[in-house]
């Protein structure tokens, strides 16, 4: 789900993420025609600010003085040289060139990028009680149009806080999420079975082509097991046609969503001339909502039937929400929709990268295998409670997310005036937090390009890594609410895979680079061999 990165529905003009279509390019051209000459370029909106009075040596500088690429250079980079798929690399280049805080301008949108862990810490530690990621107008507009509610990703202010307060009490505490261990393990059983089937289809009897396809199904099945309390059958060998259609539809939706999320970037008045992006945007949402509606309604009907039979109602997340009525039915639909969207690609990309990195580093894989043998032996199935005894598995997930932070940049709109890195940043400024750059910065992680699990293994409980350099789930009250669910899914599946298989590179896999497609995803299919241990 490219969505989150869409801190951006509006500011996507900038960091966007996926391939912009030609129509959009026209829009940008119009934006820039007027600005194309002279040095008015890029500063018209930077309000003339008188920084607060301070001692001379600590003079607070204005945004005007902040370095950054020129608007024109940015345009060329992004449109001419298709910078959108390389946003993460450009982030790195720009932070090297302009420093840890720099400004960029995309159309009318000014973005202040922060590529320094201490500045990130400052921003996140001083957040208000309902932080904002970016402009969500287009999301809201769709919801108003269809009479739907906002969910956690799209909601703001009081609405957001109320829903977040309900949901975090259900799915954020590690011990609450540990209760899903058995449910997730059933999905891992199916994942292992599926791998065994798939590899028989290849001539070497070991290769699974494009593992992300497999992990997509795993992540979707696991999230559905938790969110919808039902199984979809994504990993079955004999998938019922109905479910197959569903998966196909969803795949399409996820991918078309990525290219249409920019619909919101086009000013409303242009929609009559270029209607397609907005229409596709709405179609995608219709599909996503429909899927959740079906599953929420199904569960609701089951509960109703149980009640009519005088049976006791038992269940997980959805049942709890439906029974306690802490949220309206529309809010439940919206949150189920947005969580499914946020929970599938993120987890599957991370699993793809993790297994790829394991295949590239057989030595590391052996270390983890040894740890698993010592803790669990060859046969015992790992549960949530075992993970504390598997520090290398936790480290694997952390190091993978450091290498490939699924959200290479995230956004915040400042809700107060603040001084950041010596610059005065007025309230309402769009910030881009450059997680990709800080994750790969040698200052934060010595020999940052080395894949090393020992960075994350603590000698004792007072051994701390003071580090905002890698915060792949964000930090604070607006951080990822699915973090513990995602970690559970990844810890349980990776442990089981390493326990059962030796994971190797398939000869048909090239060097796979990351590309940004909303999220940081594998730029080519990752094909891996799964060879039985013993």
């Amino acid at each position, binding site marked *: 789900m490219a969505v989150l990165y869409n801190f951006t529905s509006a500011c996507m003009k900038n960091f966007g993420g996926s391939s912009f279509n030609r129509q959009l390019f026209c829009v940008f051209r119009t934006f820039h025609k007027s600005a194309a000459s002279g040095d008015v370029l890029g500063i018209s909106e930077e309000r003339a600010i008188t920084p*607060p*009075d*301070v*001692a001379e040596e600590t003079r607070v500088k204005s945004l005007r003085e902040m370095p950054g690429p020129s608007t024109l250079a940015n345009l060329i980079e992004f449109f001419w040289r298709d910078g959108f798929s390389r946003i993460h690399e450009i982030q790195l280049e720009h932070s090297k060139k302009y420093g840890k805080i720099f400004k960029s301008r995309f159309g009318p949108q000014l973005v202040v990028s922060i590529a320094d862990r201490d500045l990130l*810490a*400052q921003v996140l*530690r*001083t*957040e*208000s*009680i*309902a932080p904002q990621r970016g402009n969500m107008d287009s999301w809201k507009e769709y919801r108003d149009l269809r009479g739907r509610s906002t969910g956690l990703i799209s909601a703001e*202010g*009081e609405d957001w*806080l*109320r829903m977040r*307060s*309900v949901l*975090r*009490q*259900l799915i*954020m*505490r*590690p011990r*609450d999420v540990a*209760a899903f261990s058995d449910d997730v393990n059933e999905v891992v059983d199916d994942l292992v079975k599926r791998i065994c089937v798939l590899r028989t289809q290849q001539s070497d009897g070991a290769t699974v082509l494009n593992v992300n396809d497999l992990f997509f199904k795993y992540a979707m099945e696991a999230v559905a097991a938790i969110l919808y309390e039902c199984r979809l059958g994504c990993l079955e060998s004999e998938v019922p046609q109905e479910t197959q259609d569903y998966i196909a539809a969803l795949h399409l939706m996820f991918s078309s969503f990525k290219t249409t999320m920019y619909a919101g970037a086009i000013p409303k008045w242009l929609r009559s001339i270029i209607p397609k992006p907005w229409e596709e945007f709405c179609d995608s949402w219709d599909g996503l909502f429909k899927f959740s509606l079906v599953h929420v309604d199904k569960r609701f009907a089951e*509960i*109703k039937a149980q*009640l009519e039979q005088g049976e*006791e*109602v*038992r*269940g*997980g997340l959805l*049942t*709890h929400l*439906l*029974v*306690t*009525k*802490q949220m309206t039915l529309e809010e439940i639909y919206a949150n189920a929709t947005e969580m499914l969207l946020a929970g599938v690609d993120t987890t599957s990309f991370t699993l793809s990268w993790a297994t790829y990195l394991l295949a590239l580093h057989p030595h590391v894989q052996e270390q983890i295998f040894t740890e698993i043998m010592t803790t669990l032996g060859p046969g015992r199935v790992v549960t949530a409670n075992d*993970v*504390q005894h598997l*520090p290398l598995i*936790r480290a694997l997930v952390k190091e993978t997310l450091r290498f490939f932070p699924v959200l290479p940049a995230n956004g915040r709109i400042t809700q107060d005036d603040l001084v950041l890195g010596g610059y005065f940043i007025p309230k309402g400024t769009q910030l881009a937090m450059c997680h990709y750059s800080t994750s790969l910065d040698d200052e934060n992680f010595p020999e940052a390009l080395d894949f090393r699990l020992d960075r994350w293994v*603590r000698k004792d*409980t*007072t051994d*701390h*890594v*003071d*580090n*905002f350099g890698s*915060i792949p789930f964000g*930090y*604070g*009250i607006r*951080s990822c609410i699915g*973090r*513990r669910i995602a970690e559970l899914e990844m810890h349980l599946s990776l442990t089981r895979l390493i326990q059962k298989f030796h994971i190797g590179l398939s000869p048909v896999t090239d060097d796979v680079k990351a590309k940004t497609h909303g999220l940081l995803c594998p730029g080519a299919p990752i094909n891996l061999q799964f060879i039985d241990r013993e």
Partner: protein
Amino acid sequence: MALAAALRRLAPVALGAFPRRTTAVTLGCGSRLAGTRRLSAGTQPLRSDNKVTIHFINRDGEKVTVKGSSGDTLLDVVINEDLDFDGFGACEGTLACSTCHLIFDEEVYKKLGRVTDEEMDMLDLAYGLTETSRLGCQICLTKSLDGMVARVPESVTDIRQSKDETA
């Protein structure tokens, strides 16, 4: 509608693993993070022998002495006693924020019980971390902690405010 009524009746039924809590949240009281408050509902009045005395040292260095019940977390105590530590406990004890960071004496620290990996990860991101730091929402009171001292560290906002004042 009959269903709605039935569901309402059902609400007190234990549901799987979920702790039931009533959440009351207010917004917009101006101060940072301070608006987030969780009220634990249905707490049984406990016998006084289950009470544990805690001395908090607030950010101004003042001592605030309160009593909490065994089994409560230190965050519960801060909320129940309505202690005004600005921004404390922003994520309502769900291990997402580390604003419930507290500092202890060495001896007390050793008695606080196991630190989970998740707590350590969040502690990594706590402001003003020390070797005897813990997250208040993860510490459950026991009789053996009676008389403990817990210091609330300065927050980033404090530092900035005091700088502003001297400037």
